[in-house]
């Protein structure tokens, strides 16, 4: 089998970026949540809500960006719920997050059934995001057909990396939210509204997770199916630790994960004789290995998992 060819390499590289995109979006969002001290295990359910809402809106209105907007919006609604549970009520973050995921998993399918009734024939589809060539850049060898010929959401995810980096390291918001996640009492004393900051971060996390979910139904395919995010939300939870909560490392982690995923997908598609089920295990095993490797160096936000409540 012609593995080590230029064409294969291009296919693999281009797919890497696509496989990385939802994980990148979700993990960037998770970084917001966790940096502010909230572990958001609701990301998988939020993604599914994004996938279903984005699809439904696009299906009826026919505008992709409106669909993305709706996915982000529903993601924010899920983030709001998460914030209400974990910030206002101070519930166990693990449990609140799992609750959100349960809810999102069920509700996404429920809504789809409600609005897009099953016909028993071919499933309804939309015209999804298609690759866009960036003028001038798409001609560059290797990079052109891989990075610069992708659906808009890939560009969105990539552009978000430096933007998020800028927010985290160069703005008051970034300083504030990091402080809130490290020492909420100190942040409060310094005049930062801990609650508002955490709400904001969870809203951002929700919006990004919603868009990440929409990727599956609106770019990587053209239909919605229950559970179609395939556990990518959980991967985000692992990657953010791997990346030490830094957006640039998140990019690296997402590409690494996407790369492994793409490698197993391309191998399988080209008929390389290796049990594909074993290949499917790789990204998860790999993530655990990486976690073990970085665990001692991981500098968790000190207030992660701790609800903040002002006494008195």
């Amino acid at each position, binding site marked *: *089998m*012609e593995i080590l060819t230029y*064409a*294969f390499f*291009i*296919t693999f590289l281009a*797919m890497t970026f*696509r*496989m990385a995109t939802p994980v990148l979006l979700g993990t960037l969002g998770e970084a917001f949540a966790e940096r502010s001290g909230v572990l958001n295990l609701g990301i998988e359910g939020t993604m599914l809500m994004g996938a279903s809402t984005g699809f439904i809106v696009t299906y009826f209105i026919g505008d992709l960006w409106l669909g993305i907007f709706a996915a982000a919006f529903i993601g924010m609604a899920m983030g709001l719920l998460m914030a209400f549970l974990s910030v206002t009520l101070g519930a166990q973050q693990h449990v609140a997050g799992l609750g959100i995921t349960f809810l999102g998993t069920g509700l996404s399918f429920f809504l789809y059934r409600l609005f897009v009734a*099953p*016909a*028993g*024939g*071919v*499933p309804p*589809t939309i015209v*999804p995001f*298609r*690759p866009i*060539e960036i003028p001038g850049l798409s001609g560059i060898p290797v990079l052109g057909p891989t990075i610069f*010929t992708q659906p808009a959401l890939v560009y969105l995810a990539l552009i978000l990396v430096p933007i998020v980096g800028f927010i985290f390291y160069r703005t008051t918001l970034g300083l504030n939210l990091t402080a809130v996640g490290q020492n909420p009492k100190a942040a409060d004393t310094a005049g930062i509204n801990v609650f508002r900051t955490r709400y904001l971060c969870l809203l951002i996390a929700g919006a990004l997770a919603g868009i990440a979910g929409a990727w*599956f139904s609106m770019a*990587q*395919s*053209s*239909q919605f*199916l*229950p559970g*179609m995010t*395939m556990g990518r939300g959980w991967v985000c939870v692992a990657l953010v630790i791997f990346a030490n909560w830094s957006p640039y490392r998140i990019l690296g982690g997402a590409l690494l994960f996407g790369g492994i995923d*793409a490698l197993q*997908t*391309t191998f*399988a*598609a*080209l*008929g390389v*004789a290796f049990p*594909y*089920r074993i290949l*499917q295990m790789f990204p998860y095993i790999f993530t655990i290995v990486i976690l073990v490797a970085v665990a001692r160096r991981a500098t968790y936000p000190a207030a992660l998992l701790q609800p903040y409540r002002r006494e008195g």
Partner: protein
Amino acid sequence: GTGVYIATRPAAPIEPAAIKIGFPISTVIEEPWIGAIYTALVRAENELGITFDWSDDIGYADLPAVIREWATEYDIVITDSFGCEEAARIAARDFPDTQFVFGSGLGPVEPNVAVFDDWIHEPAYISGMIAGKLTETNIIGVVGGVPVPEVNRLINAFKAGALETNPDVKMKIVFLGEWFNPPIAKEKALAQIEAGADVMYAERYGVHEAALEKLATEDKAIPLFGNLLDQYELAPALVVTGPVWDMWPTVNYVIESHIQRDGESFAMDLAEWTMARKGGSKLAPWHDWETRLDSRIVAKMQAEDIINMVETRWAKILDGTFRVDIDEAVPVSD
């Protein structure tokens, strides 16, 4: 339990309108295999006046219990029992007066379990023949669901058909390992297209989208072959045809037998009713192919005189002079 067995036979023959069919299914109604049965039941409802209820997403763990529940309420219970063959049969045994029709890989059971499956390898073979003619790179891609016999025999038949018309064809075959994963199916199809496949057999959803994307962005026209249902709507410019499963003859036959036997149950393998000769399997309709399909595909089809080839061969299949072999081994890429 079904209550008391009534020994006296009703004087009047059974009215179709009095027949209640239950259709509980383990998977979801969106699944194309289920969709084919559903479509036939809707037709039976419209044309014969039977009533039917369906319920999906039951799962194989629950299906036997649901079979028990539905057995007392319905005259005929149609279901898919692949994942719980034994348990489903044990459940059916307790209700000898209810007619069961299982989508199953195993045989029928006296007195009341009839079985069916999608035996659409014949149109799959023909589709393969077309594909063999249409490919220029001599590479055909296949994205399949799970390598189970009913999938394997389609892909193998498709491959045999392609090899007949084009002995140089190489097949790239990949399985998703799932029945539903359009995003990954699309990526796998894209990888095959990048690796030279210029004709695709879309056993599963997602492949259409890959081809549509290639058409939209690179103006590449990749002929597609659907599966199970008439899928031309998914990509009118690209879906040439594909094996289609028509459950109507089977459903019709089961209802007729039920009436003829005065409601007494029977056991048989309904396989022949899903094959070409009884109209249970066919090629998806052409739907004005000359206008809807991409002009390049049309040109190629006209040049190769595809329609003629298909019609000749189909006639041979119908009159029994051509047989498509059934090969259920897991197909592998060349």
